[in-house]
């Protein structure tokens, strides 16, 4: 039985060594290149004495970044991707959480890394990828590895202002890749364009199926997603047949009327997720690509990427919500009501995930882990961990799971998962701020920040830029004389939202 994610690569490199695996703006790596580089990097860290510990990968988006991930796994370690667009203070929080002893950089990011307050020894990709592979040592590491060993940690927004690192192991990634590949029918002819950042679990959808099947993934510059016509032309130029993108990347193309000028010629598989696909935009896509298969995917980082799917097989009216559908094989969704019992048919309940796809938990964070990686309340006989997503769902009349709302202040904004509490914690930490509250305008996709304090809105925005990633910055920032409070003295978010809606009319 396969128990190591890189066994995919071991098999594929024998079959199609010279095929392009990952192609980007700066370079393209064949399967043989990827294999060679990851073995070199694995050997390098082995010789450094690193084993079963986190190694930071801080590189610009490139095929080499992926080979660096694999190299870390080869060394028997786990990769922690961080990105040049993350503000330095956030990166410091991540480094403090992981306490890494090594960081892989490219020429550019090595300069940025010098400015971090938490200093980690930096190794440049282009140097360490030239290490002669020690076949014997690599084989030994491979033989000793167990499929419950972690392979990566990715960081997600945390409501207290500190990001949480989700650690996932070989087995949950293997399970995910097998089920996803079967569901979306990937094969050796699959050509992907990666849209999501490499520092999230979302890129698993392209990275691992590529080495499993000997497929090809194009890693495109982010700027391409600003220019809809160029983007579609790019898809056609590279005969791209499969995209797994966030909804906002797809609607950017349809909403601006790009299809009037150019249409995707080869695209057959369109998977989307992370947020609601407005039916008006979805209808445009379906009209342009009537033969294509559209699949809605749902799942949290804590469930190793995606855990539910729905193949769109009927028409939806404006205002309808495309269902989350059903879990992948080998995963069960438990809908638990407030008494921790199964929600009655059609009643809402918290979506909880049971199965191999549940990740290991939050790295170096037992308190947060305990809150949502919990014993299955339906089973008191033996230890069994389920993950409580905090999402409320219910079954519709077709028996399909539908997302209803959140239990807390987590939002999905342009495909990113954000805790409004994390933004508020960062605003509250600014000097001169007395209180802060965020609300989300889902219709216009705007994060609205209200605050009381001596700073101007511009000053607040400028200071937040140093602390929060771009996608978490409020789109509207407004100073208030005083914060509306509930009788209990809590911030009255309902009131804030009401005033906001009345004002924007």
């Amino acid at each position, binding site marked *: 039985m396969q128990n190591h994610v890189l066994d995919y690569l071991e098999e594929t490199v024998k079959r199609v060594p010279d095929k392009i695996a990952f192609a980007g703006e700066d370079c393209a790596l064949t399967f043989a290149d990827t294999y060679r580089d990851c073995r070199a990097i694995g050997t390098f860290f082995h010789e450094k004495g690193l084993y079963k510990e986190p190694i930071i990968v801080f590189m610009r988006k490139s095929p080499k970044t992926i080979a660096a991930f694999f190299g870390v796994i080869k060394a028997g370690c786990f990769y922690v991707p961080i990105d040049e667009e993350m503000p330095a203070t956030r990166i410091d929080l991540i480094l403090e959480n992981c306490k890494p002893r090594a960081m892989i950089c490219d020429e550019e990011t090595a300069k940025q890394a010098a400015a971090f307050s938490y200093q980690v020894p930096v190794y440049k990709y282009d140097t360490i990828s030239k290490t002669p592979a020690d076949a014997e040592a690599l084989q030994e590491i491979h033989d000793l590895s167990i499929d419950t060993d972690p392979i990566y940690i990715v960081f997600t927004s945390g409501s207290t202002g500190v990001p949480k690192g989700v650690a996932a192991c070989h087995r949950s990634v293997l399970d995910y890749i097998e089920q996803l590949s079967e569901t979306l029918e990937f094969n050796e002819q699959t050509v992907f364009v990666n849209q999501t950042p490499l520092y999230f679990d979302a890129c698993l959808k392209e990275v691992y199926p590529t080495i499993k099947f000997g497929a090809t993934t194009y890693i495109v510059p982010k700027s391409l997603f*600003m220019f*809809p*016509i160029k983007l579609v032309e790019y898809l056609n130029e590279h005969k791209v047949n499969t995209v797994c993108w966030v909804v906002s990347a797809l609607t*950017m193309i349809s909403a601006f009327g790009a299809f009037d*000028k150019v249409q995707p010629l080869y695209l057959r598989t369109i998977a989307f997720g992370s947020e609601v696909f407005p039916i008006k935009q979805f209808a445009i896509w379906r009209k342009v690509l009537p033969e294509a298969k559209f699949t809605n995917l749902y799942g949290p980082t804590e469930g190793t990427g995606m855990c539910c799917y729905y193949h769109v097989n009927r028409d939806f009216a404006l205002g309808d919500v495309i269902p989350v559908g059903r879990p992948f094989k080998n995963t069960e969704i438990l809908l638990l009501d407030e008494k921790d019992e199964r929600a009655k048919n059609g009643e809402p309940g918290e979506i909880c995930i049971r199965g191999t796809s549940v990740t290991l938990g939050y790295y170096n964070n037992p308190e947060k882990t305990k809150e949502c990686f919990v014993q299955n309340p339906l089973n008191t006989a033996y230890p069994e961990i389920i993950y409580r997503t905090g999402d409320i769902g219910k079954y519709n009349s077709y028996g399909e799971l539908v997302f209803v709302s959140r239990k807390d202040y987590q939002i999905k904004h342009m495909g990113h998962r954000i805790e409004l509490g994390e933004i508020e914690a960062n605003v509250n930490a600014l000097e001169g701020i007395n209180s802060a509250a965020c609300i989300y305008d889902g219709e216009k996709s705007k994060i609205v920040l209200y605050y009381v304090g001596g700073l101007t809105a511009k000053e607040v*925005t400028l200071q937040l830029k140093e602390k929060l990633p*771009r996608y978490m910055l409020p789109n509207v920032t407004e100073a208030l004389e005083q914060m509306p409070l509930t009788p209990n003295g809590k911030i009255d978010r309902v009131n804030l939202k009401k005033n906001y809606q009345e004002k924007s009319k």
Partner: protein
Amino acid sequence: MDTLLEILKDLHPDVDFELCDTLVDDKILDSFDIVTLISEINDQFDVTISAEDITPENFNSAESLFALIERLEDED
């Protein structure tokens, strides 16, 4: 032009939009900004920016963006 500068300043208070002509090349604007900008411009100027107008050239500076708006206004 002032209205446009105001929209841009709201997105990035720290950028000198009167001078900068590498908004796209230097990755100052990202896809969030483009989407926001287009909807704000469509609202405030009563024009429709279509897909073929969304090019790096048109969005590289406030000046070129304003020129695009004027062109679109003339067409109406």
